[in-house]
């Protein structure tokens, strides 16, 4: 029996216009996109295509100039910056190309960060962060600072940080861009596994073999969606 659930992400005719000096730059020109819970989507495009802008909007770091972006039914266009911060804290996990861990701070504390801003008791923060680190295979490295970890390990800490708050959406922006092949594969394996467990993953990349891990490929060019097709049968369907 099919259950109708409203989609996680609905973009309707989104435009993003930046003003640089006297010139308006149209980074997004009418993007419409729907992503269901449990999908694994790769957003591809060359630099300057608007994929970073799209990523920022999907991650609630930015708002569209025109059009609508609904995450879990909530229209972000009408929200204040503090409300956006709350959505990022509760619903979105970020993984960046350059890891973006806080320097001179242990892996555990880095992984704790979203819970810290959620105001959880310290004990609970630590327990959840330790569990997240274990899930990405970093058990025993809790007290290492980022400089004591390899690139792959740092990215895994970043994934743990993204996971710890049990978000509804994991946004990975070129997660393997700074990693060697071996580490890249490990990171992609973790992301695939998370997706199998039901996490919605959106991957921004320009590498085809990375994008190949995803089940759906959205190509952006000049601020518009050029193609959008399913590359793999969905391995998982979210249940209501």
């Amino acid at each position, binding site marked *: 029996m099919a259950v109708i659930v409203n989609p996680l992400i609905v973009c309707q005719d989104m435009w993003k216009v930046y003003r640089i000096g006297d010139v308006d730059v149209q980074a997004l020109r009418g993007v419409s996109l729907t992503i269901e819970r449990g999908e694994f989507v790769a957003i591809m495009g060359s630099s300057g295509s608007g994929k970073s802008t799209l990523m920022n909007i999907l991650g609630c770091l930015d708002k569209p100039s025109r059009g609508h972006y609904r995450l879990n039914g909530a229209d972000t266009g009408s929200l204040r910056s503090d409300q956006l911060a709350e959505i990022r804290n509760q619903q979105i996990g970020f993984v960046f190309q350059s890891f973006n861990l806080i320097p001179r701070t242990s892996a555990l504390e880095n992984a704790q960060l*979203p819970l810290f801003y959620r105001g959880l008791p310290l004990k609970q923060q630590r327990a959840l962060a330790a569990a997240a680190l274990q899930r990405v295979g970093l058990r025993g490295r809790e007290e290492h600072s980022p400089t004591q970890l390899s690139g792959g390990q740092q990215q895994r800490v970043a994934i743990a940080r993204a996971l710890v708050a049990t978000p509804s959406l994991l946004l990975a922006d070129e997660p393997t861009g700074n990693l060697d092949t071996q580490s890249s594969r490990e990171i992609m394996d973790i992301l695939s596994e998370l997706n199998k467990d039901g996490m919605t993953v959106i991957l921004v990349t320009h590498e085809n073999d990375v994008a190949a891990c995803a089940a759906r490929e959205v190509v952006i060019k000049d601020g518009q969606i050029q193609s959008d097709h399913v590359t793999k049968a969905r391995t998982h369907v979210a249940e209501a």
Partner: protein
Amino acid sequence: MFTWLTIVTALRILRRNRLRAGLTLLGIVIGVAAVIAMVSIGEGAKQAVQKQIASMGTNVILIWPSGTTVGGVRGAQGGAVTLTVGDALDLKKKIPFLTDTGWYTRGAMQIVNGSHNWNCSVYGTSPSYLTIRDWSYSSGGAFTQADLDSAARVAILGQTVVENLFDHGEEPVGAAIRINNVPFRVIGVFSPKGQSASGWDQDDVVFIPYSTAERKVLGTLFLGSVGAIAASAARSEDLEDAVEEIRAVMRVRHRLQREQPDDFTIRTQVDMGQVQEGTSETLTVMLMVIASVSLLVGGIGIMNILLVSVTERTREIGIRMAVGAKRVHIMMQFLIEAMTLGVVGGLIGVAFGILAARLTTIIAGWPTIISSDAVVIAFIFSVAVGLFFGLYPANKAARLNPIEALRYE
């Protein structure tokens, strides 16, 4: 919860940049220490002045003759000799506020002891004058009413006079000296009083009974005329009323018409003290201002270091925002860091300030009083300075655009 963790984070960040935090703290430390040390010195000076004023005796009122006005030309104060022993006795009788009145006449005289001689002020006073002015004795004692009545040739010497007339170790009490060639017996030596508030040596004096001075040594203009009258009130609150009553009684005694000005001047200890106290008050305020400026400079140091810190940690701020830190969280983080600098700097500053005040007393011998008010105010001020100068950097951090902050290299 958040606040506590933020404090811990702030402390860790400060510990990480020990040298930098230390140098920043130094500004606040010096500022707070300066405020405390300066106020202590100022308070010490004020108390020294108060002690000088107290050396005049307690609740003392002095009455001098006014300057004469002859055909519109004003003479100096004390130019006319209009006060008498009768005035003094009458004042005591008529004004219940006054516990006692005394009087003196004065002149500079040559004093001889053996081969030594000295020239100083010789006061012919009533015994009551000695008690009013609160003289005490390092040896011997005062002359009495009987000495006054019999015009006894007895003298009390100030410390400076003793030093100049007697060899070291020689006992002055009981010695025979000559004042203006009249033989006197020394019956007492005053304890040192030091400099007066206006700077003259209060120990360079010889006191003899008024009657002796009048008849045998100084002579007076007319019988019973005195240089000045001193009166003492029981309570300092009574001084003002006492002055008014003295004025009334004196005007009647001197038969002054309504339009005539007083032919005498009345001063209380309070009047004389006010000028001196005002001076040290000014000194305290000036020192405070200078110290506050250095505290302000310390605050600018905090702002400077926090601005550097905000720039340095732009990316970190971006990360924190991306994982859900609200503006108020970022703001709090930097404000708490600034306040931590203020608190730590303030505490160290208080310690150094107290130390500096103590050292000033030990090394320079200046009296200092560490006022708890100054300590508390300086500390609160240093925290407030931290907070105030932290506001701008904290606000700057909180207003960062997360996208740009994340991309910041």
